[in-house]
């Protein structure tokens, strides 16, 4: 899967098809002697041009359509569309609906984090090609992982009818909401999932981590009363603190030749990191006591600036998501009206939520008939893309002199630290706001 060629003292490492990432990516590294000449994390996933074909569709179709950007985190996409449109229509559903939406996200986080921690990332640390090989020697752990994932999916399926592309999300609430007894059936499994997540934190804390700390700018949502899922201000550890509507004033996108996904940058500061490690660094004190306790028991201290430890951050977030799901289900009262009536009028709305892989941003502009005039979607992986390349530049010097296969594997692992979802990154390439001739409305 990788090829290395040596011409004189020039070495080229190419991984044409990166494995255990969602979507199609490639890695290209060029070394001259001990000097790194080029590093490219390439995304060659074919563009699907969602932002272009969303124009002319009705706002009520946006949640179903945008879900199809990503089969791994469809809830983040459909709910982000719902939130952005509700902001434009100035609609705020009742607290019980808000809690159900948090529960919906918890399901997706548990499912997606279990998938990445055990099936996609752990094999790197333990030296397996995949989870199937890992299961031969760690069958019990893999069975637990699959059960954890299944429990996350069970939340999604009860809430939305099926695990992938669930059907219940709607502007104004949900098409239908679950009954109390239906949700209660999840509790015994969630108690088990909480215990297993706590064990997982301990398990992954014992993995071997390279010494590799970077001066990151972490970016995530932040909410005064809760660990962020679908609401909050956008903050960073370097002073950013903005309303979601200001996102495009602070972040910009760059198109680079080697990628079908645009690179996101913070204006005048460059690359940044979104995702579990960023969220944890910025919101640690809002985790439940149990999650904080297990983190400190395992020696996980803040700030944590080693991206390889994102696997621990994901496990800690699974503890949070199970804990939060149990809390929401225990306090749940069926809302009187599943979906508020909403009068459609022209508007512009932005929203950001925390997809499993990090901050996701949507903006919609639509007319009085609810027809979409412009859409912008910025997925977490396109935001992390530049940071992934920066990490590789910094990490490679540690690997010089190692055997080629190991070097390739370690670079792949460094990319997988970000759980990149390449399908998302490309399926959402974004419209340029400074294009000539066709002004795009801004908020």
């Amino acid at each position, binding site marked *: 899967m990788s090829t290395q060629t040596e011409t004189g003292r020039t070495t080229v490492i190419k991984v044409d098809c990166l494995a255990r990432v969602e979507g199609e990516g490639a890695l290209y590294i060029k070394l001259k002697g001990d000097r790194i000449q080029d590093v490219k994390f390439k995304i060659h996933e074919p563009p699907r041009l969602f932002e272009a*074909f969303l124009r002319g569709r009705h706002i009520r179709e946006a949640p179903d359509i945008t879900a199809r950007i990503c089969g791994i985190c469809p809830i983040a996409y459909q709910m982000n569309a719902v939130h952005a449109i509700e902001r434009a229509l100035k609609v705020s559903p009742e607290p019980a609906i808000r809690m159900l939406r948090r529960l919906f996200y918890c399901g997706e986080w548990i499912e997606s984090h279990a998938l990445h921690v055990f099936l996609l990332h752990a094999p790197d640390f333990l030296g397996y090609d995949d989870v199937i090989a890992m*299961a031969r020697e760690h069958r019990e752990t893999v069975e637990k992982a*699959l059960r954890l994932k299944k429990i996350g999916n069970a939340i999604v399926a009860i809430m939305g009818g099926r695990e992938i592309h669930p059907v219940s999300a709607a502007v104004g609430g949900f098409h239908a909401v679950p009954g109390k007894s239906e949700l209660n059936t999840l509790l015994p499994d969630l108690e088990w999932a909480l215990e297993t997540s706590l064990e997982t934190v301990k398990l992954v804390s014992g993995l071997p981590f390279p010494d590799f700390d970077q001066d990151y700018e972490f970016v995530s949502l932040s909410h005064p009363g809760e660990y962020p899922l679908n609401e909050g201000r956008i903050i960073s550890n370097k002073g950013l603190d903005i309303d979601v509507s200001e996102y495009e004033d602070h972040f910009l996108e760059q198109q680079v030749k080697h990628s079908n996904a645009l690179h996101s940058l913070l204006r005048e500061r460059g690359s940044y990191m979104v995702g579990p490690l960023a969220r944890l660094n910025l919101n640690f004190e809002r985790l439940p006591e149990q999650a904080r306790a297990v983190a400190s028991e395992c020696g996980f201290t803040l700030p944590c600036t080693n991206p390889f430890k994102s696997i621990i951050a994901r496990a800690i977030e699974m503890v949070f998501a199970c804990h939060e799901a149990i809390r929401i289900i225990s306090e749940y009262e069926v809302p009187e009206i599943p979906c508020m009536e909403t009068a459609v009028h022209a508007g512009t709305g932005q929203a950001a939520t925390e997809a499993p892989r990090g901050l996701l941003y949507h903006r919609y502009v639509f007319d009085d008939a609810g027809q979409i005039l412009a859409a912008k979607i910025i997925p977490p992986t396109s935001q992390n893309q530049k940071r992934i390349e920066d990490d590789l530049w910094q990490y490679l010097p540690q690997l010089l002199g190692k055997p080629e296969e190991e070097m390739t594997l370690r670079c792949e692992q460094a990319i997988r630290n970000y759980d990149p979802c390449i399908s998302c990154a490309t399926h959402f390439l974004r419209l340029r706001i400074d294009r000539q001739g066709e002004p795009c409305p801004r908020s």
Partner: protein
Amino acid sequence: MNSDTGMKPKIAIFKFASCDGCQLSLLELEDSLLDLVNAVEIAYFPEASRRMLKGPYDIGLVEGSITTHHDAERIQRVRRESKTLVTIGACATAGGIQALRNWKDVGEFVRFVYAKPDFISTLKMSTPVAEHVPVDFELRGCPINKLHLVELIGAMLAGRKPNIPTYSVCMECKRRGNVCLAVSASLPCLGPVTQAGCGAICPAYHRACYGCFGPMENPNPTALAGRFEAQGHADRDIMRAFRMFNAWSWQFRQVSEERERR
């Protein structure tokens, strides 16, 4: 199905333009995943493994539609390497939601999304796999039903035809005991022309079917569109209803174009 070597049959999963959701269904099998990998050899599945065995493969599962020159060539190779080729999901089977470009100027789409459109190579149309190579079986859905995948692999192993229904969502809806939303609430429900397979989840969640599984066998979408019109739905809304994830299937395409022309 037996491979020539008498070894476990080799399965490969190929991705084209798609969301990854259908191939993820394989990992969503959770309970049966470890049993499945005992029965077959997952020889090529980049989303899950670094180990990529060379073909030929006994079963090639193809996710995604064809949208680039490179992919149009690649699907030919995939066909040559796969004894049995099965498309999984609406993208591979009908072109997917990205087939909405087929009615527009894709050059304008690319210029709209990218600052430097010259770097981007894409075809004018998003097309189903069957427009490029012969396909042995199609699994419908956006996403597919993971139990259909188990049935398909099981049937292939046993050398029989997969038992996948081709009747409409209405059949599942009745069996589920849902109230008919087309009749009781005059919603533009695609259930009568859409192939079963999802379990009629949308009507169970109080919303109209939006056609994830594409046209059933011998549907009559023109008649259904007429019924929507009689219920007071505008041509534009009727056009949009048929122009979703299976928009490029000829049965849905025909009726959406008919409504667009009005």
